[in-house]
């Protein structure tokens, strides 16, 4: 019952705000305005969060999983599905992160969206998103999960194109939706394969089947897992389907923070962890996950170095961090993937909200070339942003140090891991520290490089925006402390996370770590710190003392040009995928199939029936006596027919 309340509260908020949006638009007068809408939306999510906390810490404390069924959803042949929500330790982590971060961001949104004409609609979409996300997290069967999966995609589309009057934003929304659909197709194929082979779609059954005794051949198990992973690459913006996420920054900044950094994009990671029974039975798929994660982490980190849009940098950073999560999952360290998912949700949400605060203060300017020196003007934003930056760069004892170090350690030591991947990951971590401190130095240090008008307007954001920043900054600091490795705490501080997730993620197969001496582990840990310091040091040397205007991107040469243009991946996709598809659609499907075939059949049948009718119209002579004749002949035929029959 409680799980249903958790899921339904945001839906109630979404529906009530949605209805009011329609009524407001139709009647031209406000039933309620942005204040009430914001309070309802925030209240719904906050209530969900409170109940979630109760469920996780009180109800789940003594049991392995809580499962609650509402009613039977469908029964088709052998497939029986019910609306069942399941809370176990994996979904508990995700549930707390999603409802918690959502609450903070809803609160921030009240300040951010102030003055927008369609703020009620905004809150309706935001609540709808939380509802879909909760379905995804708590659904205990693949179809239910898929409903949430598609639902968050829909809300992402609606919110990226929230200011749909700007065509560029509408196109970005469309791009996100279409790229996601490509991934979803993989998810569907995986689901079909699983159903065809095991005849059940509940998560527990699937994991259990693949763990216990896979009747499927090795090849098909891997195909199934890779299909599911393709779904994850779409939703979680991995190579080759990451292109939508940077464009998705066209949406309002809290949306970028909530959907495109903290929650929705981590759904792919969550899904892989959810189906770890399947993935552990598919070693090739595990390698694919590991490598794709590592390559994505590396490539998007390099792109982020040369971006000048504050939100684009963070977007590529998100892609990169998601790559780290997949690296962890690919190395078999599902608990660590979830750990990094959680810490990432904190510091990335903080960074995005901080960037929103900066953009707000800069009257809409997003280009860091025209910022600088905001430190004294926006102290709260500066401090929180700095804390989150230190966290993502991996300085101890901030959150990402523990999670990222654990990821690299697992990649290094796990039986699924790989030393080359470890090197790639370490370089990506170095780049992460570098581009994040570049962002900080260009934004907050040096002298102001914008216009005088912007300088005049420059102000610290209101309390509704800075308070969430502070909450998230605190979480970015202490969020990692629940997973301190034993080696560092020497057993004095319990590794809460590992203890909590241990059973849930090793239920369907254990992953063994190769044995290394403690000195190597300490050495790698030291290396992580060294990497973070090196990134900070290079960024400081290059950007801390910058004077005057920064060069125009058009003058970039060589490697910086390549990276500024994101390896021309978008252009490449345009050339090899989008344009051929468009020309195929126009030349074959439109001009031949549609215009010739379908229109031909439709118009042809219409005109041929017209011709038949012309033939029969000859019978209508206008002479009454001929009609009389037809009648009598008809009656005679009817009588003759009856006579013959009887």
């Amino acid at each position, binding site marked *: 019952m409680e799980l249903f309340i958790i899921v339904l509260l945001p839906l109630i908020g979404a529906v009530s705000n949605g209805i009011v949006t329609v009524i407001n638009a139709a009647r031209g007068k406000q039933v309620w305005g942005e204040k009430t809408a914001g309070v309802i939306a925030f209240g719904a999510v906050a209530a969900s969060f409170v109940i979630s906390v109760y469920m996780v810490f009180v109800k789940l404390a003594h049991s392995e999983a809580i499962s609650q069924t509402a009613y039977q959803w469908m029964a088709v042949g052998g497939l029986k599905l019910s609306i069942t929500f399941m809370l176990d330790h994996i979904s508990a982590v995700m549930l707390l992160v999603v409802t918690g971060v959502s609450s903070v961001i809803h609160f921030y949104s009240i300040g951010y969206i102030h003055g927008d004409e369609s703020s009620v609609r905004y809150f309706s979409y935001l609540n709808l998103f939380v509802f879909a996300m909760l379905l995804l997290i708590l659904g205990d069967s693949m179809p239910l999960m898929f409903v949430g999966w598609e639902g968050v995609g829909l809300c992402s589309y609606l919110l990226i194109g929230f200011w749909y009057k700007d065509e560029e934003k509408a196109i970005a929304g469309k791009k996100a939706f279409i790229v996601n659909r490509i991934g979803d197709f993989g998810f569907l194929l995986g689901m079909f394969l699983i159903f065809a082979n095991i005849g059940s779609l509940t998560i527990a059954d699937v994991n259990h089947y693949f763990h216990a005794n896979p009747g499927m051949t090795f090849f098909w198990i891997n195909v199934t897992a890779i299909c599911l992973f393709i779904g994850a690459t779409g939703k979680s913006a991995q190579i080759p389907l990451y292109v939508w996420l940077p464009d998705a920054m066209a949406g309002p900044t809290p949306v970028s923070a909530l959907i495109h950094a903290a929650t929705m994009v981590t759904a792919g990671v969550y899904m892989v962890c959810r189906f770890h029974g399947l993935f552990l039975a598919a070693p090739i798929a595990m390698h694919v996950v590991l490598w794709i994660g590592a390559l994505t982490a590396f490539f998007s980190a390099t792109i982020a170095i040369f971006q000048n849009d504050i939100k684009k940098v963070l977007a590529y950073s998100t892609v990169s961090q998601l790559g780290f999560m997949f690296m962890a999952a690919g190395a078999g360290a599902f608990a660590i993937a979830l750990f990094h998912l959680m810490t990432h949700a904190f510091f990335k949400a903080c960074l995005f909200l901080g960037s929103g605060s900066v953009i707000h203060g800069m009257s809409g300017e997003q280009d860091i070339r025209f910022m600088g020196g905001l430190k004294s003007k926006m102290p709260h934003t500066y401090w929180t942003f700095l804390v989150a930056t230190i966290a993502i760069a991996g300085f101890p004892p901030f959150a990402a140090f523990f999670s990222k170090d654990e990821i690299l350690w697992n990649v290094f030591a796990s039986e699924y891991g790989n030393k080359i991947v470890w090197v790639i990951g370490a370089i990506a971590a170095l780049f992460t520290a570098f581009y994040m401190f570049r962002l900080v130095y260009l934004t907050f240090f040096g002298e102001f490089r914008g216009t005088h008008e912007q300088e005049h307007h420059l102000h610290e954001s209101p309390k509704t925006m800075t308070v969430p920043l502070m909450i998230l900054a605190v979480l970015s600091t202490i969020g990692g402390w629940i997973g301190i490795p034993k080696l560092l705490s020497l057993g004095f501080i319990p590794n809460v996370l590992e203890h909590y997730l241990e059973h849930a993620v090793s239920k369907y197969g254990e992953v063994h770590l190769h044995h290394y001496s403690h000195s190597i582990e300490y050495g790698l840990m030291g290396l992580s710190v060294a990497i973070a310091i090196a990134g900070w040091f290079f960024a400081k040397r290059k950007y801390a003392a910058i004077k005057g205007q920064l060069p125009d991107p058009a003058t970039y040469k060589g490697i910086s040009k390549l990276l500024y243009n994101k390896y021309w991946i978008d252009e490449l996709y345009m050339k090899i995928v989008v344009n051929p598809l468009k020309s195929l659609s126009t030349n074959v499907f439109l001009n031949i199939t549609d215009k010739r075939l379908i229109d031909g059949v439709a118009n042809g049948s219409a005109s041929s029936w017209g011709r038949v009718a012309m033939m029969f119209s000859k019978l209508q002579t206008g*002479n009454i006596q001929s009609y*009389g004749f037809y009648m009598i002949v008809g009656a005679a035929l009817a009588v003759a027919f009856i006579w013959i029959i009887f």
Partner: protein
Amino acid sequence: MFTQYILAGDGGVFTIAVVLILFALGAMVFLFRRTLLHMLMGVELMLNAVNLNLLFFSRLYQNHDGQILSLMIFVVAACEVAVGIAIIVHLYKRTGSIGVENYTEERG
């Protein structure tokens, strides 16, 4: 089915024969005479054939439904004649002709 009716009862066959001949004559008149007035008379002839038929079977089965129906047909036929003749008179006044071949405006 029909045969057994025709053969049934006393003099049934003659009545049926009269009915059929009367109906056929009416139909002939309706189909082949070229003036509207004659065609109307042909229709009346057919209606009377039907009435006769109804009366015969009504008596054969000792059932009054047929007689009632034939009374209704009288009424309808009288109305029809009144309306029909009125139309024909007006047509004649307007165009000076009641030949059916002149009224073929509804040719398809």
